[in-house]
């Protein structure tokens, strides 16, 4: 076996001296063909999770064919040069494993979950579905019918309906405005040629990260993955560039009529990505506003007013844009009051109302709960691919803790005044 990797030093961009430096999360190497490989041994339990992340999300769908990235991902496991779809199903399930492809906005992940003793089989299957899918026409028709029916059924779900509408408002003219799955109008028109071309152009080694977590060593992974992936080469040409989402889309209110006993409410505006200097301050501010069960929104809207079972806020960064969203569900006659309470809380965040104990709680939680974000092999694999894809560095746990610790009261109030200004939020209400 030829040596295909150059071992790289693992301590990346250490921008600050953290108080206590932990070991890096994983070994990192780059294959000659550009595949970035991350290995995190967790030897106590004989299981392995392999997550391959390819920069091939719906953001690369052409405007006239939304849904291609998702259809391509769905069809990866429906037939390869070696096995038919049902044969793939039987092979992986016979060993009690799982092999699932999932398209997102920025990327598509293929996740293998398998017992250690069956790892060779699992890696064969993973390499097959990534490199040699055949996209049989009859499988495509089947999958299109399923996606169409799923889209129709999702109209029953006010959270999906509302979040799709919000994406249209927040990302006008940008691919993020389109649902990952495409639309009822677009999916039926997709062709095998479009899928084949999408796979050829987008599934490339220099756009791929593979994270391996579990009962393995870096040496054996280097061998077993190198054998299967070293023949993979990138097509000519560069990866396409995608424009950033608009930074200040018009503020719009939309109502979507549904005959339901509750209304689902979304308030949203552009957010920021992990590389923005305000990111950690906004994380802390968000936790105080609507992050946990001690948050202002939870306390006022749920505990005091009894207006909602769910109310919360979240920051969703993507590669090409980010959103900041508050959402809740309330009874039909509670909407006006709930929205008023939320807007009031948004406004108060930037007005010098911050209490020291709120700040300390938020920072203590964000720092202290970090280990719980890494408490299963699947979560570690997901974290590793995100760290690599968004350039966060393998010392991210230390970096994260240090950055959160540095956030001051003034930081929180400053970012809240910008990103929590109620006048900047568009809204979607799904209900009567």
């Amino acid at each position, binding site marked *: 076996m030829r040596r295909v990797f150059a071992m790289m030093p693992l301590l990346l961009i250490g921008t600050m001296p953290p108080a206590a430096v932990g070991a890096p999360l994983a070994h990192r190497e780059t294959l000659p063909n550009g595949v970035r490989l991350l290995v995190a041994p967790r030897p106590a*339990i*004989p*299981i392995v999770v392999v997550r391959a992340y390819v920069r091939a999300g719906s953001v690369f769908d052409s405007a006239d064919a939304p849904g291609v990235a998702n259809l391509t991902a769905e069809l990866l496991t429906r037939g390869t040069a070696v096995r038919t779809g*049902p044969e793939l*199903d*039987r092979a992986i*399930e*016979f*060993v*009690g*494993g*799982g092999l699932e492809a999932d398209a997102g906005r920025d990327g598509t992940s293929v996740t293998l979950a398998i017992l250690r003793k069956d790892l060779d089989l699992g890696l064969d299957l993973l390499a097959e579905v990534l490199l040699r899918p055949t996209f049989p026409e009859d499988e495509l028709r*089947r999958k299109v019918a*399923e996606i169409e*029916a*799923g889209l*129709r*059924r999702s*109209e*029953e779900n006010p959270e999906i*309906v509302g979040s799709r*509408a919000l994406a249209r408002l927040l990302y006008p003219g940008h691919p993020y405005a389109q649902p990952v799955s495409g639309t009822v109008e677009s999916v039926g028109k997709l062709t095998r040629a479009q899928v084949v071309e999408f796979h050829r152009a987008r599934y490339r080694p220099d756009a791929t990260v593979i994270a391996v977590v579990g009962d393995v060593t870096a040496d054996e992974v280097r061998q077993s993955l190198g054998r299967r992936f070293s023949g993979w080469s990138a097509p000519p040409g560069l990866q396409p560039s995608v424009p950033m989402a608009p930074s200040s889309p*018009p503020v*719009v*209110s*939309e*109502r979507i*009529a*549904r*005959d339901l*006993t*509750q209304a689902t409410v979304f308030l949203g505006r552009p957010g920021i990505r992990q590389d923005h200097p305000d990111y950690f301050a906004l994380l802390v501010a968000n936790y105080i506003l609507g992050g*946990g*069960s*001690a948050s202002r929104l*939870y*306390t006022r809207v749920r*505990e*005091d*007013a*009894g*207006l909602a*079972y*769910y109310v919360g806020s979240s920051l969703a960064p993507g590669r090409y844009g980010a959103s900041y969203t508050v959402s809740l*569900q309330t009874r039909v006659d509670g909407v006006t009051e709930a929205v008023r309470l939320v807007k009031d809380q948004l406004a108060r965040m930037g007005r010098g109302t911050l209490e020291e104990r709120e700040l*300390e*709680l938020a920072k*203590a*939680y964000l*720092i*202290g*709960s970090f*280990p*719980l974000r*890494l*408490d*299963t*092999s*699947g979560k570690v694999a997901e974290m590793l691919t995100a760290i690599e894809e968004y350039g966060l560095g393998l010392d991210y746990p230390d970096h994260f803790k240090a950055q959160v610790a540095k956030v001051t009261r003034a930081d929180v109030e400053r970012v809240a005044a910008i990103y929590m200004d109620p*006048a900047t939020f568009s809204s979607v209400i799904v209900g009567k």
Partner: protein
Amino acid sequence: MPPHSIAAACPALALAVLTATALASAAPDVAETTLDNGLKVLVLEDHRSPVVSVQMWYRVGSRNELPGATGLAHFLEHMMFKGTPAHGKGEFSRLVEQNGGQDNAFTTQDVTSYYANLAADKIELALSLEADRMRNLLLEPKEIDSERQVVMEERRTRTEDDPDGLLSEEMNSLAFKAHPYRWPVIGWMEDIRRINPGELRAFYDAYYRPNNAILAVVGDVAAADVIARARRLFGSIPRGPEPPAVAAIEPPQIDERRVFVKKVGAQLPIVHVSWHVPNFQSEDAPALDLLSTILSEGRASRLYRKLTYERRLALSAGGDYSYFSLNPNLFWLYATPLPGQTPEALERALLGEIELVKNEPIPAEEIERAKNQIQASFVWRQDSVHSRAASLARFELLGSWRLAEKYLPAVLAVTAADLTRVARAHFPAERKNVAVLVPAESSPPATSPSPTTR
């Protein structure tokens, strides 16, 4: 994640039920003790990460309720976060979060479970909070009324506005006549609206006692230390009277039962079919569990392969069997037709699969696959301290955490003849329950965006 969720015995949880079985068959080193007041304490050391899962499981669920006061167990679960004299409203979760932890709870037909996952060196906090709220809840009328509104919102989200939730509720009340599995875990809306502080207090006093609880702790801790802490923090809580047993026994079903639910806003029909079946106490249970896996676990399973893939009848199809149910429960199949297919055709197809199991031996490969899937799920369950603690408690609820050691060998011993036998014994065509959700005729829910730029 908002605290408080419901896990009813419903199809959506098929996977959870299956994986919940998973604890290594190789007996782990569980330290087990029963305090003088009856509290069962189980501790498993797991030093892979510096975290611990602390879980308190009370042997009370909706099966312990009475008509007219359904939803008490779940309502009380919500109130468990609303304060004691020592810790005010919301203080439990606030303290856990302040210490970098996450906490939540869920209620089922059989059990109410509370957990905190946090850094292992904060275990004292998690244990002392559980000890405090075991007997010291305030249950203030003002807080009860405010939380009542929250529970009603929860019911609207999960049931009124969710076709699957609605149909599952209808199936339970169709299939059960006498047993409390008849009503939904969250309770009927009118009961939630009416339940008074006295009833909550009486329910709390009856069931929240050390002798009715299981404390399961898994993580980066020393077992002896945890047990010593448990003794110190819980030891002085007096044993309570034994809670009343659930006396109701579901009478044999004598004929087919069927319900149609018309639902405005639903886009596609849903079909549920179920039969009354025995639980873990029966020798047939491992075969029923294996059969449920053969029918519905994964894309190679019979229902997906035949109904969704080959015949293109179903958008989705699956099943559920509650091996862990404290009283006999349902073996459940469900499916949603693809547009253009009828619920009648889908029902025939589901029943056809049951007849096939009765009449033709299941090939060895399918049996082997299902056994491997169940076995693998046991191993995966060890991946997190949370799932390990939940598994210990779940088996303990049935009598002993050691039952986990017997479960896997029993499933692996099931033969093709066993599968045929249990299918014939438990799935009589004339005693099935069928629930069908039909999208109601109404004006289509046209999206009427009225963009008004402010």
